[in-house]
């Protein structure tokens, strides 16, 4: 699209026509040449209008297509992120089961320790509690680290209002 818009021409005044016709060598020829030039330019402008419309249609289609591609990419990325989150949720639930088992083990060991009759038995239970507690701590830390990494992912931090 051309930014320099063509300008309209002023109509010829009768006095100007008479003045131009007073010169027999350039009068009629000049008027005819001018008219033919204007006709040619009008045809060019009609062609330019068609080209502009075609260009606009192409650009509109391009813009719409680009937007569709961008939206599809965004949706795909969001879907991937959601799948990642869902997978983590599944892992958290599985992990929870394991942690519950450890907790049960600790509470059973605690009861046995409380009711222990010998110091050896108490020491063995203490070992069990220590190992289970250590595993529990590591598990919780592992899941928390994964969650922290998830919360720091670009989709949740980039371009967000501060």
């Amino acid at each position, binding site marked *: 699209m051309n930014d320099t818009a063509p300008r309209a021409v002023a109509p010829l005044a009768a006095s100007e026509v008479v003045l131009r016709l007073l010169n027999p060598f350039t009068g009629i020829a000049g008027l005819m040449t001018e008219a033919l030039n204007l006709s040619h330019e009008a045809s060019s402008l009609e062609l330019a209008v068609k080209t502009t419309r075609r260009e606009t249609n192409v650009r509109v289609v391009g813009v719409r297509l680009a*937007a569709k591609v961008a939206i599809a990419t965004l949706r795909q990325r969001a879907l991937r992120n959601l799948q990642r989150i869902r997978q983590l949720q599944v892992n958290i639930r599985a992990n929870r089961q394991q942690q519950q088992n450890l907790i049960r083990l600790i509470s059973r060991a605690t009861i046995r320790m409380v009711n222990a009759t010998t110091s050896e038995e*108490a020491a063995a239970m203490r070992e069990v509690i220590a190992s289970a507690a250590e595993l529990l701590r590591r598990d919780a830390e592992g899941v928390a680290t994964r969650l922290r990494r998830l919360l720091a992912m670009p989709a949740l931090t980039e371009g967000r209002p501060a």
Partner: protein
Amino acid sequence: MIQIIGTLVYFGLGTIAALFNASQRNRFNETVSYHNKTVEICKQRIATVTRRASGSVALAQAKAEYRTAISAGNAAWEFMNSTREELNQIWSGIMTLQARILSANSSQRYEIIAAIKELRSTHAAIRVNLYDLKDRVRQLNHQTALLKQRFVQLGEAGITYYRHLQGRQCQK
């Protein structure tokens, strides 16, 4: 006589040329006006389409971010809730052992104290993790709330989605 006829013919042809010139000027002017109007309409059309397209992309991005944030927040809350339960269970184990300290003999007491120490350190480590996550989730929730407000600025479709979210919140 011939001169007069010649002059009349000349001016007659001149008038025809002038009329043709005027008609072509008129046609040119109409074409110029049509061209300029078309160019303006095309510019406006491109601007409108670009604005709508960028609005749609912005809305899609905001929706994607919002859904991701909500899902991540939910996952974090689920983990935090189960962790809170675990902390309570560990704490009750610590309390059970503490209640037994006084009645236990010296060697058993030593083992009980060691077990309590282990459980306390586990409890503290898990609690630190929990509080750290809680802070992050709180921050995420704040950002998600701001993100939700952003829908209102994203045109008609954004407002509709915002209302849809509000409706869902009311149902809950």
